[in-house]
């Protein structure tokens, strides 16, 4: 059953967004709890690199995306492709208003758990310790967030993959680094075709 829910969340057929489903769930809980969804105005892409995250959150978030998609030989990390910059821009858009505050809270908790369990800031931990903290979030063991910690992890993983592998115009996948590494060319310029 858990697995089926995960599928429903993550892989929607035929052009239906997965993120929207998570958002809907969040919005419903907001309403149930009598809290209005946070009103974060839509802005055009900020001139500065980050318009939503505070510098401390940028540091924690960068460390997190670097662990979600780390570098491998011939493959860039999500830190190198600027996935967090993508996330920052997305969270300023209207459709992400219901989760923006939650993501902010999640990053704060990431650091809080690191300090409590590992006695260091999240950014100061070894990658093995960072992964251990992240696994605690993924498996829902971290308490006290406004939604289950697994949902924070899931939102960040979804958004990181979008920022890593999506169109660079949204602020991630810088210089198409991830596409180039995998041989992906969505423009479909086959080079050799002469079809009408």
């Amino acid at each position, binding site marked *: 059953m858990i697995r089926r829910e995960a599928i429903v969340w993550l892989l929607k057929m*035929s*052009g239906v967004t997965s993120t*929207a*489903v998570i958002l809907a769930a969040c*919005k419903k809980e907001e309403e149930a709890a009598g809290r209005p969804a946070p009103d974060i105005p839509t802005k055009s892409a900020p001139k500065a690199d980050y318009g939503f995250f505070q510098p401390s959150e940028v540091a924690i978030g960068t460390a997190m995306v670097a662990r979600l*998609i*780390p570098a491998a030989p011939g493959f860039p990390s999500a830190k190198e492709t600027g996935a967090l910059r993508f996330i920052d821009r997305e969270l300023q858009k209207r459709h992400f208003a219901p989760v923006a505050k939650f993501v902010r809270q999640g990053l704060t908790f990431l650091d809080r758990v690191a300090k409590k369990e590992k006695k260091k800031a999240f950014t100061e931990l070894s990658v093995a310790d960072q992964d251990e903290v992240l696994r605690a979030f993924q498996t829902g063991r971290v308490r006290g967030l406004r939604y289950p910690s697994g949902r924070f992890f899931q939102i960040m993983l*979804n958004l990181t993959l*979008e920022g890593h592998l999506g169109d660079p115009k949204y602020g991630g996948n810088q210089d198409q680094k991830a596409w180039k590494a995998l041989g992906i060319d*969505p423009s479909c310029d086959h080079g050799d075709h002469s079809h009408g």
Partner: protein
Amino acid sequence: MADGPSFLGEEVDLCVVGSGAGGAPIAHALSGAGAKVVVLEKGPWYQKEDFDHDEIKNARRDMWAPLVMDEPHLQTTEGGPRQPTNNGWIANNVGGGTVHMSGYFYRLHPEDFRLGRRYAGLEDASVADWPIGYEELAPYYDKVEKTIGVSGAAGAHPFEPPRSGPYPLPPVATNPLAKLVEDGARKKGWHPFQIPRAVLSRPYKGRSGCVYCDYCGSYGCESGAKSSTLAALVPEAVATGRCEIRPHSMAFEVVIDAKGRASGVRYYDSDGKAQMQKARVVCLAATSIETARLLLNSRPQSFPDGVANGSGLVGRNLSFSTLAKGFGEFERAKLPKGLQPVPPNHFLDRAIQDHYFIDGESTFDKGGTIHYILPHRNAIYTAERLAKRHEPMLWGEALTKEIKRYYAEVHQVEFEIFGEFLPGPKTFVSVDGDTKDKFGIPVATIHLQRHPAAIRNARTLASLGVQVFEAAGAESTWTDAVGGTTYVLQHGTCRFGSDPSRSVLDPDCRSHEVKNLYVTDGSFMPSSGGVPTTLTILANAFRVADKMIEHMKG
């Protein structure tokens, strides 16, 4: 953006709600026959220039379906709590779901029209015979294939439904990996065939042929080779000078006059203002769920429970298509050279219908189609799919390793099954809660209770589908979403039939109660078939258009 005539403020002959597979053929045929038509379409009128391969825009936001925060459906599954969802939206744009469809254009089989008698005693199921037979729809299958352009090979397998002649276009080009499926299926003694596509294999009627970018599903076609109603029917209808497509028009009420006839449709225009389009005939084609919602939200004194709902059956007998997926993975290094695909990206597109009915099942033996394709090339989707093959989902080094391997070392082939859904008393659409959409219109609730026999047969089809991969020498195979639901294939909320106490529509898809009100999306279908149903909805709409022309003359 929009072009063509404007009939704003005028009474017209016909008002159609929806411009997809059910609505566009009506608008096309009736404007062609001289009627003045207005099509109310809730979404935008995309042009070719709006179509690109941006996965985030096309597959992960609100290009096609609205955001849940703006226009939710509610869903309760197997008696669980009602949750907001965007399940049940197909598309909100001129051309509807035919714009972002993959365009697999199978016909129903003759037996599909007679499942009511076949499964008469089946518990918790409400399958019914169709009031028409295959032979009545067959000429309209021909008509769709010729009118919009469908590419295929006739006579390719022994289970092919009867047809009068060849396809108007030869099949689309084949990916070398199709041989794996063909060989595997033949080893099992089954009969693989190339799937007919609503994609032009060569230029046709002024539209260009496919360039094989392989971004069909979830995407609009920037070359115009996909035979959507947007590309193939809307331009011809508009060119008559008698058909206005009115985008950003959200219908919310079918208006009934003192004589009990439909007099038009009320809708919110692009500024959110309530407007009325008067018409002598009204045709609804907004999807099974949204058409039912519109009727149930229209409650004049003469129809306190919803327009055309004297039988209480509007929204009932909802069916989707039963889903299962399977994957076979082949190591590139072990495949013969000829099986290494090179761009352009030709289609794998093979299917088997040897199990359209499952041997050895006595009570409910309806299977369906096992449909082999290449997994969608969306990169974000691919990474997620690889990640979720494991529980909990992969991330970190484990995920990057899988991603790299996928793009460099293996080929995966996928199948999807299209299984009979089996409608029943606990699967239906209602409009009975407090939840409203951004327009203030009460939303639809989808009640879903999947029939155990349909799930069982999906499991059977999935295991048969995997056997093809095994026979083809796959290194590994797995299944996913077995017994799941394909929400974009919708049927049955306004069933057609001869008996007004057991159906909403008559055999001409006209309301039993409101004689100038028609429904031409999938709502009319008493059973879901074992194939994607887009072609059938188009064909039936052309059939109904002919009836409508007769009725209007009479």
